[in-house]
């Protein structure tokens, strides 16, 4: 049975298993393999198993159910991936929604150079080069990778929420929150240990 074979293969493979690779092993068509994977995914969902079949573009992978994280963590300490910085997330958001996009276009939106951030994202394999633009200097175009989809839990780029949906949520939140108090990133200068802060500022005011 094909589904059963795919199940075993996914278990051993660990990482997302490409539909084409799996189809080649069983010598069936990609379409047939895709159908089987989707059925398998559906079955796991319906039986509400602790293992989830997740889809990343045209590959499938076993992962744990998020609801069980507490128990898994009580059992052992799984390796945690370090979270991305604010600037990395901003650049990644622009690449995700505007791809293929050049560094220049990203810089224009954020008002700051993004070379180093892009470098970091390339190293983490969250973005990749997607050819070159026809514009002057033929700058490199960037797009997101399958790892990006996987790490952020998207099935495909079509799965990205509409920007307008996000905006309405954010605006609603903004109305309630006091930006001054709630911003955790705020550092008062006294805390950092700059004693001359008050003087400097009053000088500026004069």
């Amino acid at each position: 049975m094909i589904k059963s074979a795919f199940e075993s293969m996914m278990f051993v493979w660990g990482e997302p298993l490409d539909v084409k690779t799996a189809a080649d092993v069983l010598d069936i068509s990609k379409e047939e393999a895709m159908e089987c994977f989707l059925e398998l995914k559906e079955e796991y969902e319906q039986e509400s198993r602790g293992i989830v079949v997740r889809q990343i573009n045209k590959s499938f992978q076993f992962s744990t159910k998020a609801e069980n994280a507490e128990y898994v963590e009580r059992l052992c300490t799984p390796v945690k991936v370090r979270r991305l910085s604010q600037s990395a997330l901003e650049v990644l958001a622009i690449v995700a929604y505007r791809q293929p996009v050049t560094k220049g276009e990203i810089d224009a939106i954020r008002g700051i150079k993004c070379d180093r951030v892009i470098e970091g994202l390339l190293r983490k394999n969250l973005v990749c080069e997607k050819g070159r633009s026809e514009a002057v200097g033929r700058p490199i175009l960037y797009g997101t990778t399958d790892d990006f989809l996987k790490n952020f839990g998207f099935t495909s780029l079509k799965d990205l929420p509409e920007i307008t949906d996000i905006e309405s949520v954010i605006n609603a939140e903004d109305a309630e929150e006091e930006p001054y108090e709630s911003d955790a990133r705020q550092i008062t200068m006294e805390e950092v240990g700059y004693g001359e802060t008050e003087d400097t500022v009053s000088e500026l005011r004069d």
Partner: protein
Amino acid sequence: MSYKVTLRDFEGPFDLLVYLIENAQMSIYDIRISEITSQYLAYIRTMKALDFNVTSDFMVLAATLIDIKSRMILPRNNAAGEMIFEEDPRSELVERLLEYKKFRACADMLRDREEKMSYVFEKPQEDISEYLEQPDIYLSLDIDEFAKAFDLFLLKKKRVEEVSRHYTRIEREKASVESRMRYISNTFIKAYGRGVRRISFRELVPNAADRYDVVVSFVAVLQMMRDRYLDAEQNSLYGEITVLAGKRKMKEKPESEQQENDQIGI
């Protein structure tokens, strides 16, 4: 008048500008340019004074703000002295800020997703090369030896079963280490009489089927080895243990004495 400044690690000039606008509770569509420009410049000066790295990106936006401010202060008149109604000089900036805020919202969304996905675990790829190439030899044991050991095990089991079928087991008083030590020393003394100095550990266990009994003998032997009455040899791992007399002489004692805590005057 107290004047307190808080500094964040701004991700760029727009981040700073949006913060200033929100902090002043201004509408992004109606920015009080002159107020914001002076605040923005004050911030940059403060950052420079504190040796923060103020990149040229911050200066570019500063120039843009000053440009907008000047265009708003000076109404353009044409040759006839009529005012020219041109587009709000702020509109381009507002558009860019909105665009920036939009992607900042996207970044927040991504952060939430990232957080949620941190509760999902996946497994690394299995290394199956071990099974594909050379299988490791885990047990270097001759098949005959292995079969013999297993036969012996079966035989023992069968005997025990036979016995327990015919007899009811009655637990006798458990032997103490002290009484076992006496038993062992007496066994050795008797063996001396026959000229035997080496005794298999097995022979020092009166009831080999009882694990407790084996353990008691083992502990007794260990204790007597510590006291240098006995010595032991074992030639291979899990092999036969041979017990031999140690440097100190053992003295006979009546075995029937079953007092707890009695000092063993061997």
